[in-house]
């Protein structure tokens, strides 16, 4: 064995470029998978990590349906005999330089880490400074602040300077969170007497269960995690699908590189066979090479993926905060188990991907010192497997209605595309060759046709990567247009009013309604229902009704029923998740127990994946005894000026701010754009890995066809001419891949918009066909193809043709 392995080693040392490419392929694939896997963990676990930091792991939480708990309830519970350690929490969202942070007001004396956990001496300053906050070191570093410095934040429309009184040495659950003492926070937020929820250690569940009465609820850590997980399920599924695709393309690379190495060593292998090395020994050596390459590449990939996960987390942090109202941890938390699973799978799949090569190595006859041309073994026709996969994909898509089924179906169809792409690509190349047969470029392209098997993986990978990027771009653009239309339609009021305290009371609402400058006022009050869906209470003037796009139900009847408090309007995602349609009834949890309401109509909504249940404001106030509003929509009277309204606002006792329709719209679109940044990043990574595949395939081709190239040189083709020859080939390949990517991207766009989106998020997207991804993809592919050809061209052109020509075949 040893001489064989030494042979491999010598060969790889002589060709460090190939070694690097092989490592790069597997590394990149594993890195993307690792990065996304770690990110998924963060999305599930860190949303609730603050609770762990405050009250220990698996803490339970006391909540009220109204989202607010009277602090007197806390005082009563905390002083009852046998009371566990209860942590009061008041939550508010603040912004620092546009970034969303969570302000958690707590009683530092009640937390699991206790006053001593704050570093002992930090407790007194935290309580003693009216604007004092505490944060962990990671957050401090991220915000670029220093202990003792001030932090300017935006809080419900006003600027406040907070003082960093101390730094926690590391409680990762408190990433992106500012801790403040309850007394100071209640004053700052103007929310005296109010708590958002109460945390308690896991061991207190039974005691609390006996002590608390409706409407208070006890929610376990498991329940909270499940709802956090379901909140981001769609996003995570999409990320996973993308990462697996990146991995698949990475496998193409390792296959291409090992195939290339095999080609280069045909002569050696033939000689080894001639001196008695068996096929089994040869295969073992090749398998060992694969294991070493994949093992090492996998390890580097795990390390890079860990670093990548942090970058990906940066990309999802803002959307998670904006769309789901959740703050994610700063750091990812890898586990050995996860690393091991990814590494072993990478190793296994790398071995599987080279089984064909192992077989072909065995077929090299002893003593044949030259190459056997590709076309001598045309390989299996891919049509039957493609047909089988297509049927399976269609079957999976049609029988299940789950997101997972849709993703599996889509994956099977992408496999079909990968199988068919090389054949289709070769046909295109033949056609091209036929047209330009007499020109040099035509001959260069014709030469590609003889290397079908060598080029197939690269062509498939590149077509898929381009198709994926373009398809994704088309979906995002189409979806963006749909969201823009939706926001535009939804925003009917002239301006929107919010208060610095977060809520607007009934008296203020009534006063504003009486102003002569105001024609009508709409209002909204929102609260979370247990399963992540939201209840919205609307007071809607006639003009606001234009904002709904109805998907089911009779609009006029719905309006009458809604005004009379007879039923609810539900958003499309809610209708889909709960399989509801007009005429069905829906149960609404209220402080006095659940009540059944009729579903009046279904409307289009992109605001919440989990869905919205809208009821009339008057009905809400009756049921929940909560007269507050979160925001008001102001409809100006004819001829009234906004300046007059602004002047009027000065009369109010509370601090309020106005947001114009255009501002709301641009904020919404900005959030939308941030949400898809991660998809772009992953698509880019897939495309980069595909490029590595392309370069390695071309290198293989260049070496395999060394004698042909040498002949061309001998016939008078200059080095520059040979470079042009090879670059023409790569450009042609990229162009063909781009052409193949057109139908792939169209299919992907349709699948994402019409099947995946509704299943992942619950909403449908009207189909549209934005063309510019295609227009951009074609020139970009040509450019990439030309660039990718430079290195192989250089390698091929600098080779001395004479020895190659002297070789026997």
């Amino acid at each position: 064995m040893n001489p064989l392995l030494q042979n491999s080693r010598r060969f790889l040392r002589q060709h460090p470029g190939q070694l690097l490419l092989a490592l790069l392929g597997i590394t990149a694939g594993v890195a993307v998978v690792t990065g996304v896997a770690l990110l998924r963990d963060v999305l599930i676990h860190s949303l609730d990590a603050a609770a762990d930091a405050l009250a220990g792991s698996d803490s339970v939480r006391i909540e009220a349906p109204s989202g607010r708990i009277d602090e007197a309830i806390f005082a009563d519970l905390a002083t009852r005999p046998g009371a566990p350690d209860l942590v009061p929490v008041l939550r508010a969202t603040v912004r620092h330089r546009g970034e969303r942070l969570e302000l958690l007001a707590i009683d530092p004396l009640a937390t699991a880490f206790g006053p001593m956990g704050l570093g002992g001496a930090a407790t007194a300053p935290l309580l003693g400074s009216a604007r004092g906050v505490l944060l962990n070191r990671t957050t401090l570093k991220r915000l670029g602040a220093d202990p003792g410095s001030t932090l300017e934040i935006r809080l419900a429309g006003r600027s406040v300077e907070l003082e960093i009184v101390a730094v926690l040495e590391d409680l990762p659950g408190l990433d992106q969170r500012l801790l403040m003492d309850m007394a100071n926070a209640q004053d700052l937020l103007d929310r005296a007497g109010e708590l958002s929820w109460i945390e308690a250690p896991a061991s207190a569940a039974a005691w609390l269960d006996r002590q608390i009465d409706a409407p208070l609820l006890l929610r376990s850590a498991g329940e909270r995690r499940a709802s956090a997980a379901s909140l981001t399920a769609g996003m995570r599924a999409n990320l996973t699908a993308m990462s697996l695709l990146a991995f698949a393309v990475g496998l193409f690379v390792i296959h291409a590189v090992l195939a290339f190495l095999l080609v280069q060593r045909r002569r050696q292998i033939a000689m080894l066979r001639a001196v008695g090395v068996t096929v089994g020994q040869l295969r073992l050596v090749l398998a060992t090479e694969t294991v070493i390459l994949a093992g090492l590449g996998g390890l580097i990939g795990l390390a890079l993926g860990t670093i990548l996960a942090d970058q990906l987390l940066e990309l999802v942090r803002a959307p998670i905060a904006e769309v789901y109202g959740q703050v994610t941890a700063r750091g990812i938390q890898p586990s050995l188990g996860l690393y091991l699973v990814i590494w072993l799978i990478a190793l296994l799949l790398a071995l599987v991907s080279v089984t064909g090569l192992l077989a072909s190595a065995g077929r090299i006859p002893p003593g044949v010192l030259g190459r056997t041309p590709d076309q001598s073994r045309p390989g299996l026709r891919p049509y039957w497997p493609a047909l089988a996969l297509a049927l399976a994909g269609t079957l999976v898509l049609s029988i299940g209605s789950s997101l997972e089924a849709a993703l599996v179906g889509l994956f099977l169809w992408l496999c079909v595309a990968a199988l068919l792409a090389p054949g289709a690509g070769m046909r295109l190349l033949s056609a091209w060759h036929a047209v330009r047969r007499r020109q040099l470029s035509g001959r260069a392209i014709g030469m590609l046709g003889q290397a079908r098997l060598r080029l197939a993986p690269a062509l498939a990978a590149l077509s898929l990567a381009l198709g994926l990027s373009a398809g994704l771009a088309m979906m995002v653009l189409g979806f963006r247009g749909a969201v823009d239309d939706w926001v535009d339609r939804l925003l009917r009021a002239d301006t929107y009013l919010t208060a610095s305290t977060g809520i607007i009371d009934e008296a203020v609402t009534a006063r504003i309604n009486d102003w002569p400058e105001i024609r009508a006022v709409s209002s909204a009050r929102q609260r979370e229902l247990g399963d992540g869906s939201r209840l919205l209470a609307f007071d809607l003037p006639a003009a606001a009704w234009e904002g709904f796009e109805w998907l089911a139900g009779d609009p006029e009847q719905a309006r009458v029923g809604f005004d009379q408090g007879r039923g609810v309007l539900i958003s499309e995602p809610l209708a889909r998740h709960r399989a509801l349609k007009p005429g069905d009834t829906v149960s609404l949890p209220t402080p006095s127990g659940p009540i059944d309401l009729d579903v009046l109509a279904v409307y289009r909504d992109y605001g919440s994946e989990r869905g919205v249940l809208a009821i009339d404001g008057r009905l809400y106030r009756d049921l929940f005894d909560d007269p507050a509003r979160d925001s008001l929509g102001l409809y100006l009277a004819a001829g009234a000026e906004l300046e007059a309204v602004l002047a009027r606002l000065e009369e109010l006792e509370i601090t309020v701010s106005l947001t114009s329709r255009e501002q709301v719209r641009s904020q919404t679109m900005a959030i939308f754009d941030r949400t898809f940044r991660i998809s772009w990043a992953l698509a880019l990574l897939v495309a980069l890995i595909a490029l590595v595949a392309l370069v390695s395939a071309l290198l293989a081709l260049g070496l395999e066809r060394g004698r042909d190239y040498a002949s061309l040189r001998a016939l008078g083709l200059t080095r520059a001419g040979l470079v042009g020859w090879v670059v023409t080939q790569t450009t042609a390949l990229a162009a063909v891949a781009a052409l193949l990517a057109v139908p792939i991207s169209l299919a992907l766009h349709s699948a994402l918009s019409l099947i995946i989106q509704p299943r992942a998020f619950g909403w449908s997207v009207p189909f549209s066909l934005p063309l510019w991804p295609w227009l951009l993809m074609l020139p970009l592919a040509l450019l990439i193809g030309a660039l990718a050809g430079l290195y192989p061209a250089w390698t091929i052109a600098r080779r001395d043709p004479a020895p190659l020509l002297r070789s026997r075949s």
Partner: protein
Amino acid sequence: MKLDLAVLTLLAAALVSWLVGQTRPPQHAIGTIGLATVLGDAPEHFRRVTGPEPLVFPDDHGAHPDYRSEWWYFTGNLDDDQGQRMGFQFTLFRFALNQPQGARSAWASEGLWMAHLALSDGRSQSFFQAERFARDGLALAGATAERWWLRDWMVEATEDGWHLYADAGDFALDLHFRLSRALVLQGDAGYSRKGPEAGNASRYYSATRLASSGRVRVGDAWVSVSGLAWLDREWGSNQLSDTLSGWDWFALHLDDGRDLMVYRLRDHEGQASEWSAGALVDSDGTAQILRADDFVTEAIDWWRDPDGHRWPLSWRVQLPDHGLDLLVEPIFEDQLWTRSVRYWEGMMDVTDPASRAPLGRGYLELSGYAESSPSRH
């Protein structure tokens, strides 16, 4: 080949160790509080104890928020109905906070309260301890003339003493204390000097002999107990001078009916300070105040805690003028507080050094031994 293999192995090992390092969750170090930081320099606005002032009862049983720190300190030796020894401690500490003035929130507080509850089980030689914190905002903790509490841990005044109820989950105390002797005003009518500077003093009084009865629970089983307890009440703003590093405090119930309290304040060299003091209470309740040169305390045996700190647990206490020569030894060694504040507080036996005849029981408190680095021998 070997070199390649070595390089490859090294690279793989480096990567694996980096990856393993990534999987370790970051550790959060829990800080500890130094009592000296709380009892040392106090901001100017706190009142200082600078001379004797008449104490008024029951008002002075309640909190004194003008002073920076204060405590209510019960210790006692008990026997259960099978004659097994038990010791207990319940302490309520108040540390003044400087919450901003004019706060509207009901959470705004004047004081940070800490409660320590401990039970020493002589039979199993186990030491149970529980610690709690709360603020006085929302009345989560506080002390009036009639009631001292931190959440549901509570001491209520009764006709002839107090009733303590505190449940820490795995153990609980439910004890009645009957005041069988007049309150002892320590130092000069309750003015207890502890250092050379004005203000290095506390207001200090004791209920030295409280007839105790009631029940305690370890695990699920309540047992009836009875015995003697001691209450110390103390408040001040700047009581410890910077030159002190800790103290050794003895509260002993002698079988002849006398009660003895001595404390030895130690400087940074471990020498007794001239401000050490005590009181000897006769069986008729008459108290004699002891100065530093009235008594001698000598450590004769040490115990090393798991962190390597040495604690002097066995002592010889002598009051030559009163003919007292006492050997004070712990019932068992590990009665060490390991929560936010590290100190040793445990039940003791008092015997005659020569004959080993029992002379009484008591409590010993040792502070300031864990702040130094652990000794090596």
